[in-house]
């Protein structure tokens, strides 16, 4: 699918090309988070509309994955609110939180497939845990999900026998096993060869549209995300520094966005780790 076509097809769905908060599946309102005293997120506000793919981009260690964990309720914000379907995740009772998580799918950075189960059992796992479906129906459902990612033939392999890209696709099939309303992707492209990368990117888009899912993609892969997402947020040092549709991002003159998109080694994100001036460090030896 050509890049422009993707963007245009969405222009018809949301004429203003702005995100409408009323249709929001996920909302973060002024969310801050810290591990002990180390501040990870400071005042993040973002909206993820229903049925869209939103990318959260940023350098490694900028707090992107933390945002996913806040949405999943594995962490609680120090300040602000994380709303999923209007409910504050942090205020849910454990049972309600677990009920909510059943509507979530998550693709972890390296797949996080259960190494002691076959591909088939990995995908059947959430079905066996949360439903009382008969074995024959589980079999049909698993094969259907595997077929969607093109790996029906790999059902009886162990995760250790899969290549990186195949593992990611199996994990994707597992993430959509229970037909979730929201799928979160944590670095879905990390460590993939260009072909697998394109396959996974295309799958995310296709599954999103076919199943009516809302998707959040955390990544630092600019080219792949520009091809497939509806909206991008740029996170740096725990803050949102820029956001926009793919077309806006391409046209943006914001220095951070430019550094990120063009892959410049130095810019708003410094090449040097904070240090006293070089000449002083060199002279320290002389004294």
């Amino acid at each position, binding site marked *: 699918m050509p890049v422009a076509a993707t963007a245009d097809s969405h222009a018809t769905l949301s004429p203003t090309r702005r995100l409408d908060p009323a249709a929001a599946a996920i909302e973060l309102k002024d969310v801050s988070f810290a591990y002990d005293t180390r501040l990870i997120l400071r005042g993040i506000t973002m909206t993820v509309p229903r049925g869209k793919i939103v990318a959260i981009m940023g350098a490694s260690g900028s707090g992107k994955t933390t945002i996913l964990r806040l949405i999943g309720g594995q962490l609680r914000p120090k300040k602000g609110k994380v709303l999923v379907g209007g409910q504050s995740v942090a205020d849910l009772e454990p049972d309600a939180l*677990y*009920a909510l998580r059943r509507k979530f799918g*998550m693709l972890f950075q390296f797949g*996080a497939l259960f*190494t002691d189960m076959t591909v088939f059992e990995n995908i059947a*796992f959430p079905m066996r*845990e949360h439903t009382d479906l008969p074995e024959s129906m589980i079999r049909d459902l698993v094969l259907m999900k595997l077929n969607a990612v093109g790996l029906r033939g790999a059902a009886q392999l162990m995760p250790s026998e899969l290549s990186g890209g195949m593992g990611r696709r199996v994990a994707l099939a597992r993430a959509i096993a229970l037909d979730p309303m929201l799928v979160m992707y944590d670095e879905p492209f990390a460590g993939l060869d260009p072909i697998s990368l394109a396959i996974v990117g295309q799958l995310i888009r296709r599954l999103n549209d076919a199943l009516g899912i809302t998707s959040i993609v955390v990544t630092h892969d600019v080219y792949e995300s520009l091809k497939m997402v509806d909206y991008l947020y740029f996170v740096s040092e725990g803050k949102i520094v820029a956001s926009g549709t793919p077309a806006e991002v391409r046209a943006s003159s914001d220095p951070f966005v430019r550094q990120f998109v063009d892959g410049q080694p130095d810019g708003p994100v410094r090449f040097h780790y904070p240090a006293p001036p070089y000449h002083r460090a060199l002279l320290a030896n002389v004294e």
Partner: protein
Amino acid sequence: MSSEATGDLVLVLRRLGGTVTGGVARLGYMARFLGAILWYTPMALRRLHLTVREIYFSGVLSLVIILMSGLFVGMVLSLQGYEVLRRYSAQEQLGIVVALSLVKELGPVIGGLLFASRAGSAITAEIGLMKATEQLSAMEMMAVDPIARVVAPRFWAGVISMPLLAALFSAFGIFGGYLIGVRVIGIDAGAFWGQMQAGVNFWPDITNGIIKSIVFGAAVSLIAVIEGYDAKPTAEGVSSATTRTVVVSSLAILALDFVLTVFMFRGVGL
């Protein structure tokens, strides 16, 4: 000079205090973790095959090392015991010496130490690796509690396997003692078994050994699952957690053995 010494003393005291409070906090944490395991036990037992699978990994796969060690320990006990008993012309008491030391002490303790290094370390490594590869997080995000699905079956498998392994260790040890004492040294078989039966009581000697092995099994499994669950999610984190499991659970076995022995055997004659 003296203020420096005082400073050192304060530092030592502070470190000591920190160690003590840290240890107490650790105990509290373990108790809470055990509480969580027990809470999820009914849920874990509903899928019995998970526990059965873990019994395979911690029990069945430990069989060879347990049986071999039991046999050798029994044979050595028999040789050493014979050396001592001969001085008092009490060779026919060899059966009691071998059986009592195995059933009351060596079966549970050495069995427990072997279990810690064979099965305990494997449990820690497995759970630690699941954590490092985000499998536990993935489970949580699928609304499945890892304590119910991963931790509880491994804990109960240890509690079930350990007494069986300890009994097998003792039984093979006694068989080893019989081989050396009767077959090699030539003590009368009737005296060997007869003296043993007269001197070893099912209650309390054997039952106390079984109680010990259940306690050790619970302690080793608890330490192993906690170390795995708390491991730093890196390669070094998992490997150091594995080492810690073996060290901590070995010390725990020996300390618990002392405590249990004090409680159990002192009052027998009353």
